[in-house]
């Protein structure tokens, strides 16, 4: 587990450094994500001995429980929402209206665009054949790893 933690922190650190040095708009954590994803892709495609170092098997003992309990990370900031609503009662209500309306609108637009473009892609044969039914293409382990997240298996046993 600690190997995974160390590796993730390492990629985060490099991500932060790249983001700061190049003055990117993209935050360090996202740069770290892209670097780690890039590393895993390169490793999967190029067979060099030195590249075997970082593997998903090292990462998953840390990332699976972390992503599996993603929600708890948002409890302290969420408690902060309550404080904000107290501080500016009238403005807090307006902000909450803006956030709610925008969230619902975004959800509707996304769902409609995704559905329509998926139908379009299927009709024109743009979907890869092996993904005819998306369920069939899901690598079981990955799906399982995150399923635990929703149901909090690791903590709520």
């Amino acid at each position, binding site marked *: 587990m600690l190997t995974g933690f160390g590796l993730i922190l390492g990629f985060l650190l490099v991500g932060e450094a790249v983001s700061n040095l190049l003055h990117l708009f993209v*935050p360090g954590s996202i740069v770290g994500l892209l670097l780690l994803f890039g590393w895993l892709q390169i490793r999967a495609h190029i067979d060099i001995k030195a590249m075997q170092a970082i593997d998903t098997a090292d990462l998953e003992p840390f990332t699976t429980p972390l992503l599996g309990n993603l929600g708890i*990370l948002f409890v302290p900031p969420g408690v902060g*929402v309550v404080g904000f609503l107290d501080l500016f009662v009238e403005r807090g209500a307006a902000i909450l209206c803006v956030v709610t309306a925008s*969230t619902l609108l*975004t959800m509707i637009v996304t769902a409609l665009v*995704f559905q329509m473009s998926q139908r379009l892609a299927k009709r024109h044969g743009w979907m890869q054949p092996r993904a005819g039914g998306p369920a069939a293409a899901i690598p079981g382990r990955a799906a399982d790893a995150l399923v635990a997240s929703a*149901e909090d298996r690791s903590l709520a046993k």
Partner: protein
Amino acid sequence: MTGSTTLGALLSIMPLFWLTATVCAWIVAGRIARASGFHPLANPVLISIAAIALLLTATGTTFEKYSADTQVIQVLIAPAVVAIAVPLFRNWQLVKANAFPIVAAIMLGCVTAVLSVLALSRAFGLPGRVAVSLAPKSATAGAAMSISHSVGGDVVMTAAFTVATSIIGAVALVSIMRLLRVRDETTIGFSAGLCAHAVGTARAFQIGPVAGTFAGIALCLNAVLTALIVPLLTRLFGVP
């Protein structure tokens, strides 16, 4: 001295109390959610927040004190963003197969999320700094906070309303999809992850593994795209 201030004084010398309370609230909330058959309102994040907020009020503890005592949890937000690379890598085949709907929905969805909040903030007469702080609300909290910081927003406000967005989206998800008569799991999941990131992704996994995987992909891509789009659109909109 009233009972609550004595208790508050006692708790203030026990820095571990609030960390313990948060973890316990999370475990109990998870059980309640399961027992309710994952009812939309029995959201573990929502229940934990309500329980902690009540406890803070009852003991007269400030949010600053609570936030300082739970730093160890909050420190993990940035590593959690990096960790998303692992499921993204594992599901890469599925992402490639659905490349067209993913690209189309992420572009329009992300622009809708940012533009609608800027336009509505203006309509409601909210100050520019508030609008900028709300703009990245559909990116996952860690990313949203960094984005907000880079465009001069209030990071604490962004954190608070990013989480609010996540909870609102997760609670509304099933009702909205019924209204739109959408039954396809890839669509439901992608919509949940794009607009309601972490809590929405957790909700999508309750629907099924396909929905959850697509929520994770959307969460990931939207964090990157929001980081690129927010500085652009806030400038176009003329907010500082």
